[in-house]
């Protein structure tokens, strides 16, 4: 028997041990880990995908995200959330678009190279996720909001319709244009791309280029495009799974348009990133 002075600390000492197996183990994916950048894919002039080498990655569901943490030499840390843009079963990949004065995004887009490490925890999230059930899938993305939607179309049941509605400021800023065009040509997706801030240049759509396969429209996403996209899913009665991701103002506007097109707002899952 130990003396009374050491007893409390001994008793306390046993509690984290049992607590650790009960509580911490299911959250092990939320511990920060250093992961290495295994590959870099330049997506557009200001966006790139980072394929991460995460040996203990448990796998993810389309739509989940990771938290990324950078640590400066002086110890200053900055944390951001990034959607996973790779499909289930694939190596965790994030797509980062540079934002003005973004202390994290600028580093990830301009400076980081293959072999560098960064802090990461995840996969995270259980709301904005798509497990690939046999249902029509309507994916609506603004700008880099396409990132989690790529994971979803990769996860989709190939025999169910996938309808993509995208909004970009200029055609050159469309993420995954080649992949999206490939899906449209293969007949596994329909895609409409709105170009919000520029008139379409006359040479934007050249035969044989990715944009040639996509339906391009000038101006912001409007009721007409939303209604067409819902119809392409088989209508509101076909109970499509609907995911909207983009800047907050875009998401708010699109949720209103989708509701006006007959969808139940509770069936529309959204992710806003600022």
């Amino acid at each position, binding site marked *: 028997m130990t003396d009374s002075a050491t007893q409390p600390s001994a008793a306390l000492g046993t509690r984290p041990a049992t607590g650790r197996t009960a509580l911490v*183990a299911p*959250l092990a994916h*939320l511990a920060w880990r250093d992961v290495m950048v295994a590959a870099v894919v330049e997506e557009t002039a200001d966006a790139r995908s980072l394929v991460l080498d995460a040996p203990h990655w448990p796998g993810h569901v389309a739509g989940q995200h990771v938290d990324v943490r950078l640590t400066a030499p002086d110890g200053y840390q900055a944390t951001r*959330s990034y959607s996973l843009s790779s499909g289930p079963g694939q190596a965790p990949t994030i797509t980062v678009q540079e934002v003005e004065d973004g202390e994290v995004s600028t580093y990830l887009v301009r400076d980081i190279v293959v072999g560098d490490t960064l802090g990461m*925890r995840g996969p995270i999230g259980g*709301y904005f996720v798509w497990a690939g059930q046999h249902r029509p899938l309507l994916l609506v993305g603004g700008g880099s909001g396409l990132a989690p939607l790529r994971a979803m179309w990769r996860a989709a049941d190939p025999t169910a319709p996938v309808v993509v509605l995208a909004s970009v400021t200029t055609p050159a800023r469309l993420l995954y244009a080649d992949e999206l065009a490939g899906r449209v040509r293969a007949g596994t997706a329909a895609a409409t791309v709105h170009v919000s801030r520029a008139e379409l240049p006359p040479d934007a759509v050249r035969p044989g280029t990715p944009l040639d396969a996509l339906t391009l429209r000038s101006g912001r996403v409007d009721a007409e495009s939303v209604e067409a996209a819902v119809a392409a899913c088989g209508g509101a009665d076909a109970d499509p799974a609907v995911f909207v991701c983009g800047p*907050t103002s875009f998401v708010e506007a699109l949720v209103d348009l989708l509701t006006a097109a007959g969808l139940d707002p509770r069936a529309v899952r*959204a*992710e806003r*990133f600022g």
Partner: protein
Amino acid sequence: MSHHVDGNAVIGALSLALGTDVGEGSLECAGCGDTHEIARTHVYLRCPGMVLRCPGCGAVEVVVVEIRHRLTATLSGVAALRTRPSAEPAPA
């Protein structure tokens, strides 16, 4: 000023602070009684810490502060927090 993201951004930190995965969790606002997924809260990141506001009335529900390895979650505006009904039991 109304530059918010949504609750998806804080699920990682909040799960760690609460000791369970709240990715599909919901909150009941202590102010207006609205019940909503945590993912649907309005989150303000450019504060000292992360502030979750009720999408119904705008009241502050949760504040999460993460400094180094120390997490603090203040749930002053929450009447109830629910994890998803069929939460997986912890492995024995």
